[in-house]
């Protein structure tokens, strides 16, 4: 796909920095898990470009809704790394005060309305956020990320139909990373693509190279523009790849080949963007190294912050069940 949008250098550098930061954060999370400080997490390594390209167009008062595999969504939406790492470790300084963990990270002030541990569960919620913007008369948008697995969950279809009849300002972004746990997408999806399902609900759709952040930026930008202008929802199928297993200890070579992994890792979104910045002279090698170092430093700082933070007080077990419960 030819990218026709011209993108500011600042934005290009931001997108590169975001993707590198996500990558380093996920690597650090894995180290924390190996050290026994968290039981495990669903790594988003390989998928960084998808939320970065879309979130580049979002404001703090636009809302993103995620999945069980949402660290990259959260970071791209601007959540604080310290608070995120603390949340993974169950500390009281976490985004959710340690009470939600990796699958439920949320920060409403930054428009992250939560990761969600049930496949497909957030999709109707995102439609409701779009409905809320419509009823309140604002130009806010909602973006829901979900996977190829969720594409077969009834909630997607119900929410698309609602978004279609009510012209909701909602982006449906399917991160097709080719696997639902161990089940390949060619097996589970009846049809040539996931994107084509949207036409059944009268929603325009597009298939994107989810490993190309520039393409995600261009496609995401048009979808956000449409939503803000009251033109309704868009469905984006971002084709990407999950480098690691579904969760922690999963060894994906038990259900896929090294050859396939090598192919996708050979078109890595971070490396491709680094090459693009270099080739187009947006950044020198030194400047790129500086971004890399800075990303690593912020992640290391987050790890220290999380380690130094306390666990929640025992009383926190029974708080926040309700706002009030006389």
């Amino acid at each position, binding site marked *: 796909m030819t990218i026709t949008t011209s993108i500011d250098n600042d934005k290009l550098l931001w997108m590169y920095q975001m993707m590198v930061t996500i990558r380093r954060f996920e690597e650090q999370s894995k180290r924390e898990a190996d050290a026994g400080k968290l039981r495990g997490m669903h790594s988003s390594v390989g998928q960084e470009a998808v939320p970065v390209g879309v979130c580049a167009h979002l404001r703090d008062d636009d809302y993103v809704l995620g999945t069980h595999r949402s660290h990259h969504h959260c970071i791209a939406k601007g959540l604080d790394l310290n608070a995120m790492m603390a949340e993974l470790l169950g500390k009281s300084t976490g985004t959710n005060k340690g009470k939600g963990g990796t699958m439920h990270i*949320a920060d409403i002030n930054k428009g992250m309305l939560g990761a969600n541990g049930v496949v497909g569960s957030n999709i*109707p919620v995102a*439609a409701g956020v779009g409905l809320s913007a419509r*009823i309140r008369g604002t130009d806010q948008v909602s973006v829901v990320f979900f996977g190829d697995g969720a594409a077969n969950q009834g909630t997607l279809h119900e929410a698309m139909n609602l978004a279609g*009849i009510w012209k909701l300002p909602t982006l449906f972004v399917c991160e097709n990373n080719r696997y639902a746990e161990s089940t390949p997408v060619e097996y589970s999806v009846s049809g040539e693509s996931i994107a084509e399902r949207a036409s059944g609900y009268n929603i325009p759709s597009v298939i994107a190279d989810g490993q190309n952040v520039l393409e995600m930026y261009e496609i995401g930008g048009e979808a956000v523009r449409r939503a803000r202008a009251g033109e309704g929802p868009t469905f984006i199928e971002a084709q990407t790849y999950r480098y690691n297993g579904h969760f922690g200890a999963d060894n994906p070579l038990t259900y896929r080949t090294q050859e396939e992994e090598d192919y996708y890792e050979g078109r890595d979104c971070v490396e491709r963007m680094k090459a693009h910045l270099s080739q187009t002279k947006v950044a020198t090698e030194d400047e790129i190294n500086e971004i890399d170092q800075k990303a690593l430093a912020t992640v290391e700082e987050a790890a220290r912050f999380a380690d130094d933070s306390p666990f929640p007080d025992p009383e926190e077990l029974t708080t926040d069940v309700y706002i*009030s419960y006389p």
Partner: protein
Amino acid sequence: MVTTETGTRKLSYIQAVNEALRQEMERDPAVFIMGEDIAGGAGREDQGIIDSWGGPMRLTKGLIKQFGKERVRDTPISEAGFIGAGVGAAATGLRPVVELMYVSFFGVCSDQITNNAAKMHYMFGGKIKLPLTIMTGMGAGLATAAQHSETLYSIFTHFPGLKCAVPSDAYTGKGIMTTSIRDDDPVIIFQNRQLMGLPASTHVPEDPYTLPIGKARITREGSDVTLVGIGFTSYLNNQAADLLAAEGISADVVDLLWTSPLDEEAILDSVQKTRKVVIVDEDYPRCSLATDISALVAEQGFDYLDAPPKRVSPPHTSVPYSQPLEAAYMPTAEKVVEAVREVMA
């Protein structure tokens, strides 16, 4: 303890709840209503068609004409979709009232209720507000058979994070609706369909009013036996109390109004006074509100009791279609009287 106002302004249950919805929508532009056929004939305004139904139980009649179709919104048959949308709207500044037409349909949307609405506030460390109200029709006795006659409040009471309210007449119907809409936690209101069909016989104040959350009321005072009921069984307990009075037995009737929070104090105070308790519940007998209250009374009221707690519940079966079978299924005032005779013996 809730006291009932007295007066001469008699409304039916439907009129009372309709009034509550209208008044809250007048007061607060963030309130909107969503559900199947809550207006009816959606999309045909250009043919002069509007407000054809006003709700499957007529609770929302007239509202679309007053507030328009953005705030009184008919939905397709997509419960997971629109109840989940209610969660999203509640999280982002609105106060949705969403109708689940029959509580028996919860199976198609339970994830949105039990995994999202109930849990988001806790999982997000208290950093979100979900002022969502779900109203749902429930109850047997109307020949609608197994899939349209359940009660099920015990299932939702089970989940931390949900509040559950069960009005027992027009007065509490309006008060609970107003209270639930104004409350910032997710509330499910279980509206009994037999109660909806009763004639206007209860005084309902015109000005908006709220009721204290989780507080029961005493609808008959007595000292011989405690009758605990909720929703339709509160109505039955009042009838039973009147029958018992004719036999010289005075019943203290506790109308719970809420299953979560539960007014444990009201129940135990009454049992302390009467020393005998009959718990009357229309829901299935296993793992029910009745068993929950039996455990409460047995644990915390043991010293007060002259007899074990007695439950009046339907049998462990689905609700039958045939009228004589359904009549045998349902609790009745006579069955309550019979149960009282047993504990008094």
